[in-house]
C-alpha cells in the first residue's frame, strides 16, 4: 500500500494553449479552399472563371497599356510598322483632341468662361453632396438659382441682356396672352350658354359687349408697351414694364393679404423674390464685354454637363410638383399629373426629343423659334421630371400619416406643411432614388446627339472618323476613353448614393 505521493502531483493553473487550426483552414490556402474550391461545382466554376480571365484580361491590358502608343503626332504614330507589330490604344489622339471633347467648337480664347462655369458647378455639387458642409439651404439657392444665372451669363456672353429681356418679355407676353385666351374662352362659354338659353340675337348683343373687354385689355397693354419702347428705348422700357408688373403683382398680393387670403410674410417673400429677380436680370444685363457665343458652337463635355445640369435643376422642383399633384385630392389636378407622368414614362426618350425638335416650333406662334439646344433641354427636362415625380411619390408615400396630421394640428397650411415638415423628410428618404435617376439622366444625355446636338460622345464619334487620325485603333481608343469618362461619373454617383443609404440607415427600420 502506498500513499499518494502528493509532492509529485501536478495541478495545472491555466488552460492549455489551443492547438493552431489545421493549416488547410487558415491563411491563403484556407481562403482558397473556402472560397474557390469548396465543392466540385466550385472547382469547375473556378477553372472556367480563370479561363475566361486568362482569355479577356491580357488582351485588354495589352491594348490599354502595354501596346498602347503614348506619344506621337498624327496617324503615323499609331500605325503598325515593322518595329511595332502590335498597336494598342492611340492615346495621343485623345490628348490632342481633348479640347474638342471638352468644349466642342467653343472659341479657344473664350474657353476660360467654360472653365469658370465648371468650377462654379463643381463647388455647388460638392457643397450639396458633402455631408460635413452645412447650410444646405444656401447650397440649394446657390445651385438652383445663382449657378444657372451665372452659367447662362458666362456661356452665352454678350448676347445675354437681349436674350434674357426677350425671355422675360416673352414670358410676360405669354401671361397676357393666356389671360386673353382665358377671357375669350369664358366669353365664348358665356356666349354659347346664352345663345342656347336666350337665342342667337341676344347672345350677339352679349358678345359684342364681352369681346371688347378681353380685347381692349390686351390691346391697351400692347399699345402702352409700344409707346414706352418708342419713348425710352428697349432697355428702359423693359424696366418700366418690369416695375409696373412687379407693383401690380404686389398690389394684388396686398389686396389678398388685406382680405386674409395670404399673410404679410408671403407678401414680403414675394417682394424679395421680385426684387432679387430684378437685380439678377440687371446684373446679367451689365455688359462685361464678353464675346457672344451662339449655342451651335457649344459642344463636348460642356453640352453634356449643361444638359445634365438643366435636367437636374428643372426636374427636381417639377418632379415634386407633379408628385404632389398625383397624390392630390383634387380630381382635375390628379388626373392631369397622372396623364403627364404615365404618358412620358410610356414612351422612349428619343421620341420625346424628336417631338421637342420637330413639333415644338409648330406649336409656338410664328417667328418664335427656340434654338435647337433649348428645344432639346425642354425635352430632357420634361422627360426627367416624370421619372423624378415617381421617385418623390415613393418618398411621400413612405411618410407616416402622423406627420401630416401633426403639421395640420400645428395650424400649418398646405405649402408650409409641405415645405417645413413633409418634403424635408420625404426627400431625405429617397436620396438614393434621386441620385439613381440623376445617373440615368446623365447617361441619357447621350441621346441628344440623335437630334443633332454635339455632346461629349458625339464629339468623340465625330473625331474617330477624322482623316488625320484614321487608324484601325482610333475608334476603339475613342470609345474606350468615352466609356472611362462616363463610367467614372456614374460609378462615383452610385457609390455616393450607397454611402447616403448607409448613413441614413438607422438600423431600426420596421
Amino acid at each position, binding site marked *: 500500500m502506498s500513499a499518494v505521493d502528493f509532492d509529485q502531483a501536478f495541478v495545472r493553473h491555466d488552460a492549455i494553449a489551443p492547438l493552431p487550426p489545421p493549416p488547410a483552414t487558415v491563411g491563403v490556402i484556407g481562403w482558397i479552399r473556402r472560397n474557390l474550391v469548396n465543392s466540385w461545382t466550385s472547382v469547375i466554376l473556378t477553372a472556367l472563371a480563370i479561363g475566361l480571365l486568362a482569355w479577356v484580361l491580357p488582351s485588354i491590358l495589352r491594348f490599354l497599356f502595354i501596346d498602347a502608343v503614348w506619344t506621337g503626332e498624327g496617324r503615323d504614330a499609331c500605325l503598325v510598322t515593322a518595329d511595332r507589330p502590335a498597336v494598342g490604344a492611340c492615346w495621343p489622339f485623345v490628348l490632342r483632341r481633348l479640347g474638342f471633347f471638352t468644349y466642342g467648337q467653343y472659341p479657344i480664347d473664350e474657353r476660360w468662361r467654360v472653365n469658370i462655369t465648371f468650377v462654379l458647378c463643381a463647388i455647388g455639387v460638392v457643397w450639396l453632396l458633402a455631408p460635413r458642409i452645412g447650410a444646405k439651404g444656401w447650397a440649394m439657392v446657390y445651385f438652383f438659382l445663382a449657378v444657372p444665372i451665372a452659367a447662362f451669363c458666362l456661356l452665352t456672353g454678350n448676347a445675354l441682356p437681349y436674350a434674357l429681356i426677350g425671355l422675360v418679355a416673352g414670358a410676360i407676353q405669354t401671361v397676357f396672352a393666356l389671360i386673353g385666351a382665358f377671357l375669350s374662352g369664358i366669353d365664348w362659354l358665356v356666349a354659347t350658354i346664352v345663345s342656347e338659353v336666350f337665342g342667337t340675337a341676344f347672345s350677339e348683343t352679349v358678345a359684342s359687349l364681352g369681346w371688347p373687354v378681353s380685347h381692349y385689355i390686351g390691346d391697351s397693354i400692347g399699345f402702352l408697351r409700344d409707346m414706352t419702347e418708342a419713348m425710352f428705348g428697349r432697355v428702359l422700357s423693359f424696366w418700366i414694364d418690369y416695375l409696373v408688373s412687379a407693383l401690380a403683382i404686389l398690389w394684388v398680393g396686398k389686396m389678398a393679404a388685406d382680405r386674409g387670403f395670404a399673410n404679410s410674410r408671403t407678401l414680403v417673400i414675394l417682394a424679395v423674390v421680385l426684387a432679387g429677380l430684378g437685380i439678377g436680370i440687371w446684373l446679367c444685363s451689365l455688359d462685361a464685354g464678353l464675346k457672344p457665343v451662339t449655342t451651335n458652337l457649344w459642344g463636348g463635355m460642356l453640352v453634356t454637363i449643361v444638359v445634365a445640369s438643366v435636367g437636374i435643376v428643372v426636374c427636381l422642383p417639377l418632379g415634386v410638383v407633379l408628385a404632389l399633384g398625383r397624390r392630390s385630392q383634387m380630381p*382635375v389636378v390628379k388626373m*392631369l399629373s397622372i396623364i403627364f407622368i404615365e404618358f412620358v414614362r410610356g414612351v422612349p426618350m428619343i421620341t420625346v426629343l424628336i417631338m421637342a425638335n420637330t413639333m415644338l416650333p409648330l406649336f409656338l406662334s410664328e417667328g418664335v423659334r427656340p434654338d435647337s439646344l433649348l428645344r432639346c433641354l425642354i425635352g430632357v427636362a420634361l422627360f426627367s421630371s416624370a421619372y423624378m415625380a415617381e421617385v418623390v411619390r415613393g418618398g411621400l408615400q413612405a411618410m407616416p400619416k402622423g406627420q401630416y396630421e401633426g403639421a395640420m394640428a400645428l395650424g400649418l397650411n398646405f405649402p408650409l406643411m409641405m415645405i417645413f415638415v413633409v418634403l424635408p423628410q420625404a426627400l431625405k428618404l429617397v436620396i438614393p432614388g434621386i441620385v439613381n435617376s440623376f445617373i440615368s439622366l446623365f447617361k441619357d444625355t447621350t*441621346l441628344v446627339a440623335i437630334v443633332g446636338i454635339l455632346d461629349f460622345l458625339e464629339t468623340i464619334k465625330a473625331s474617330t472618323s477624322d482623316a488625320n487620325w484614321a487608324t484601325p485603333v482610333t475608334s476603339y481608343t475613342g470609345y474606350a476613353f468615352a466609356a472611362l469618362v462616363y463610367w467614372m461619373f456614374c460609378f462615383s454617383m452610385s457609390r455616393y448614393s450607397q454611402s447616403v443609404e448607409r448613413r441614413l440607415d438607422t438600423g431600426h427600420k420596421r
Partner: protein
Amino acid sequence: MTSIADRNLPKSKTAWYNDPKLRSIVFQVTLAVIVLSVLFMAVDNAIYNLQKAKIASGFDFFGSLSGFDISEHLIDYNNTSTYGRAFMVGLLNTVKVSVLGIFLATILGFTVGIARLSPNWLIAKIATCYVELIRNIPLLLQLLFWYRAVLKPLPDPRDSINVADAIFLNNRGLVFPAIAFEEKATAILLALVVAVVGSIAYGIFAHRRQAATGQRAHTVWIALAAIIGLPLIAFFAAGMPASLVYATKTKFNLAGGLSLSPEFTAILIGLTLYTAAFIAEIVRGGIRGVSRGQSEASRALGLSTGDSLRLVIIPQAMRIIIPPLTSQYLNLLKNSSLAVAIGYPELVQIFMGTVLNQTNRAIECVTITMLVYLAFSLIIASGMNWYNRRVALVER
C-alpha cells in the same frame, strides 16, 4: 328631441374664401382653363403654321407609295409598298428585337444575378465587375461600340471569320446555317406539339399526384426528354426530311444560310448585355430579400441546395423580382428605339425618321409612334401585373 341642426349653434368663424371645398373648385377650374387655353393656343398655332407652310395633314398618307427601301423586313416589302406597310415593317422589327432581347436578357440576367451570390469568390467578383461596368456606361455608347468598333471593322465576306465552316462572321453580319424543311417535315412539328402538350399534361398530373401522395416525379427531365426526343424520333422516322443548309462562299458574298445583319446583331448584343446587368441586380435583391430563416428552415427539412432554391427561395423571391423586372422589360422595349443611331430599321428609325422627313407630317408620325409605345407599355405592364397577382402572397 331636437336634432343638432335645430340647435342654435354659433356660426362658423371661417370666412367663405377659406372654405377648402370652394378653394379646391376654384383652383381646379383655373388650372383646367389654363391647360385648355395652352392646348388651344398650341393647336391654333399649329394649324396656322401648317397652313402657312402648305403642309397637308391627316392620315391619308398611309395608303400612298413609300418609295424607299428597308434593309430588313419580316413581311414582304419593297419601294413600291405603302407607308402603312413600312409602318408595319418597323413595328415588326421593333417587336423582333425586343422579344429576342427580353428572352436573352432574362436568361443572362438571372445567371449573373445568381452568380453574384455564389459562394465562389471569383465567380461572384466577375459578376460584380460585369454589372458595375455595364450599368455605368450609356447604352448608346455601348451600341456604337458594338456596331462601329466591333462589327463594322470585321473582314469582308470573302475573309469571314469561320467557325467550323458553319457560322461565319463578317462585316455584313452573322451567318448561321439555315434549316431547310421538306414536305414530310410536318411530322416533326406534329411530334413537337405532341411533346409539349404531353409534358404539360404530365406536369399537371405529377403535381396532383404529389399533392395527394407525396410522391415526386422528375417532371423536368421527362419533359426535356420528350420535347427533344419525340421530334428526333419523328425526324428519323420520316426519313430525315430536314437538313442544314450551310452558307457557301461566292465571289463577293456568302450565299444561303440564315444571316443576321450587323445592325441587328449590335442592337441585340447591346440591349441584352445592358438590360441583363439591371436584371441581375433585381434578381440579387430579390433573393437577398427572402429572409434567412426560409433557407435555414428548408435546409432543416432536408432539402438539397438546388431544391431549396427551386422550391423555397426562388418562388418567394419572384414576388419581389416581378415588379421591377416589368419595368426593365419596358425599358428594353423603349431602349430598342436607340437602334436609330446605328441604322437598324425599327419603328422610330422608319416612322419618325424617313417617313416624317418624306411626308413632313410631324404631328401624325410622332403621335402614332408614341401611341404604339404607350400601347406596348400597357400590354407588357398588364401582362406582368396579371402574373404578379398570381404569384402574390395571398393574405387574409
